[in-house]
């Protein structure tokens, strides 16, 4: 087939655009509908997170981590406190570990639901988005029940959590899980196996595993490329080694391994695994116990540095913390999974069509708050 080349046009997708998931700007060179080059321009949401951290005590940093990945704030709290505790060589009570895992997994479901729903929206399906938000709402209700906040929790503290689980939480959680599990089938029928949806996502934006690793892509995006790597399994932190669950990887179910559909479907599968972990954790959680370790008012980790990683809904969240023994961190570096995921976009999206770029961008599930910090 002969291709007629016209003049190239530079198009700015964003910073204000419905599908950039925040204030991201994509500088796109197009020849008609075909994209020849794509350059992400970030920094519109830069709030000097790392500079702020150098001016406040260790526990004051926690609310700021909330605001980085605002769609998975619990997971960010978790990543940060795990890093600081590792630096302090602090062991927290078992009950705290259970509460943290429960919260992190609920957060994973909530975050994935939003990611899947918004992905449907990017492709043009409005209804699955609202169905998923409806169920996410119930998780947020449970968070509200626990700590009073629905989006930015400041729930996990160094050495513990801010509140114990409220009365009736475990029952509510079980009720939700019983309600939620059949819903996954509904999503699948409505969106996952929809012919148009498959047409739009399968074979699009294929990310080979070696490229993914070289770009530091992690989490569901990496697993969708067929790499069986999950920090909860490969480098267990907290008490993840106590639970039975599968690490879901993409299998190229509807097209090539590592395409957009795989990235979407891995998230759907992970939601199921999270439900599995939650059922175990909710059944095993100790009834009695303190939820906060006795710590001095000013936390002074020993001199040294630590790089600690946790598995958030978006991938490996790393905190590189340098302490000089004072109550204020010398350096806090947040290695954000969405940052690395977005960096691969230029490599992935060249040569596809306009609509595919939106589809690829959506499948990477980025949060600009975390990318720009």
């Amino acid at each position, binding site marked *: 087939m002969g291709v007629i080349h016209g003049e190239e*046009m530079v*198009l700015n997708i964003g910073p204000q*655009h*419905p*599908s950039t998931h925040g204030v991201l700007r994509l500088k796109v060179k197009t020849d008609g*509908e075909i994209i020849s080059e794509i350059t992400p321009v970030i920094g519109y949401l830069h709030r000097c997170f790392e500079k702020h951290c150098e001016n406040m005590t260790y526990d004051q940093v926690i609310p700021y981590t909330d605001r980085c990945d605002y769609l998975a704030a619990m997971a960010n709290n978790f990543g940060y406190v795990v890093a600081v505790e590792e630096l302090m060589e602090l062991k927290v009570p078992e009950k705290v570990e259970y509460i943290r895992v429960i919260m992190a997994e609920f957060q994973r479901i909530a975050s994935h639901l939003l990611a899947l729903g918004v992905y*449907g*929206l*990017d*492709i*043009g*399906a*409005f*209804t699955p988005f*609202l*169905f998923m938000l*409806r169920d996410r709402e119930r998780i947020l209700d449970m968070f509200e029940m626990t700590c009073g906040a629905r989006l930015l929790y400041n729930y996990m503290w160094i050495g513990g959590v801010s509140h114990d689980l409220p009365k009736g939480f475990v029952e509510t959680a079980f009720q939700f899980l019983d309600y939620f599990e059949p819903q996954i089938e509904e999503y699948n029928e*409505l*969106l996952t196996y*929809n012919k*148009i*949806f498959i*047409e*739009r996502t399968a074979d699009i934006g294929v990310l080979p595993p070696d490229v993914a690793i070289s770009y530091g892509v992690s989490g569901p995006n990496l697993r969708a490329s067929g790499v069986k790597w999950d920090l909860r399994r490969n480098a267990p932190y907290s008490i993840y080694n106590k639970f039975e669950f599968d690490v879901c990887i993409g299998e190229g179910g509807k097209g090539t391994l590592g395409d957009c559909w795989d990235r979407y479907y891995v998230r759907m599968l992970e939601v199921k695994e999270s439900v599995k972990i939650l059922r175990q954790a909710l059944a095993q959680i100790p009834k009695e116990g303190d939820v906060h370790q006795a710590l001095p008012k000013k936390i002074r980790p020993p001199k040294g540095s630590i790089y600690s990683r946790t598995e958030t809904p978006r991938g490996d969240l790393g905190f590189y913390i340098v302490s000089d023994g004072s109550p204020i961190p010398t350096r806090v570096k947040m290695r954000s999974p969405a940052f690395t995921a977005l960096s691969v976009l230029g490599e992935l999206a060249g040569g596809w*069509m*306009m*609509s*595919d770029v*939106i589809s690829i961008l959506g499948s990477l599930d980025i949060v600009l708050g975390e990318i720009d910090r």
Partner: protein
Amino acid sequence: MTVDTLFSWLGSLIPAMEGSGTLLVIAILIPCLVLFLVVAVNAIIMVYAERKVAAFMQDRVGPMGQGVGLHAGKWGVLQTVADALKLLSKEDIIPEKADKFLFILAPFVIFIGAFVAIIAVPFGETVIVADFNIGIFYILGVGSLGVIGLILAGWSSNNKWSLYGGMRSAAQIVSYEIPAGLSIIVVIMLTSTLSMQGIIEYQSGGMGNWIIFANPFTFIAFFIFFISILAETNRTPFDIPEAESELVGGFHTEYSGMRWSFFFLSEYANMLVVSAVAATGFLGGWHSPFPGYFDSNGWSVFWMLSKIVFLIFIMMWFRWTFPRLRVDQLMNICWKVLLPISLINIFGVGFWTLIFG
């Protein structure tokens, strides 16, 4: 024929002016006013219906009134009225770099395309403004006027998104005219008339005589026609010209206030027209599905409207269920699937009539 009836009625009312040109103009203007009202009311009702349908499909309640005071009425029935008032009172913004004349012209061109087509729509046994002898041909013809408006809107906004939207819609609408027209040819082959009333007359005598059930080929033709009109009215899954997640708003990105609402008026008017054509061509028009029952003049309006509403409901159902296709997939479906099938249909219907007719 309404204009003729009105003309002679006015003549008998004012015998002094009987047969004069003034009366003819008045006789033409009255149905125009009525039609404008129909279009406006249609848009208001359909927007409300669309919202409620969407809401119920999405497990929501949709627009609702809220307590005492200024609010949108019980169950939010006045929501679209309030929206229309808001749109009317909004500032009229024309981008500085836009081609002002074309920018202002575009919504009207689109609206005229939809509006003029309604003239030939038979809403009942006697409720039709003008029953041309080329009725269906006329509707298809003026219906595609709208695409000029879309391109104008896309071009004159001087916005890259609008340009994308305009180009996409031009490609899409022009392509889908073809399978739609070919499916209508199937109907014309059976009825041997282009008049809307004539086509409906052919289908009298109950559901069995409807063209959709006439033979297997017409059955397929109906679905091809329905898919094509979805594309022509830019409805999901073919809403790529406005694809909000890709093109922000497509051709109407730069429009706001009343100008923007003209796009909406004409979108819903278009839906009304194409559903009416589908109902006329394939579903027996204003005929009752049960021969001999509910077949009076009043019922004819009811049957026609309920068929239109049913088709529009299906369109809404699609919109809230399906994702959107990509532009090349859309073209593939048109040229590689629908077009060959509709060509085969024409042959099929020809042979079928030859053998069984």
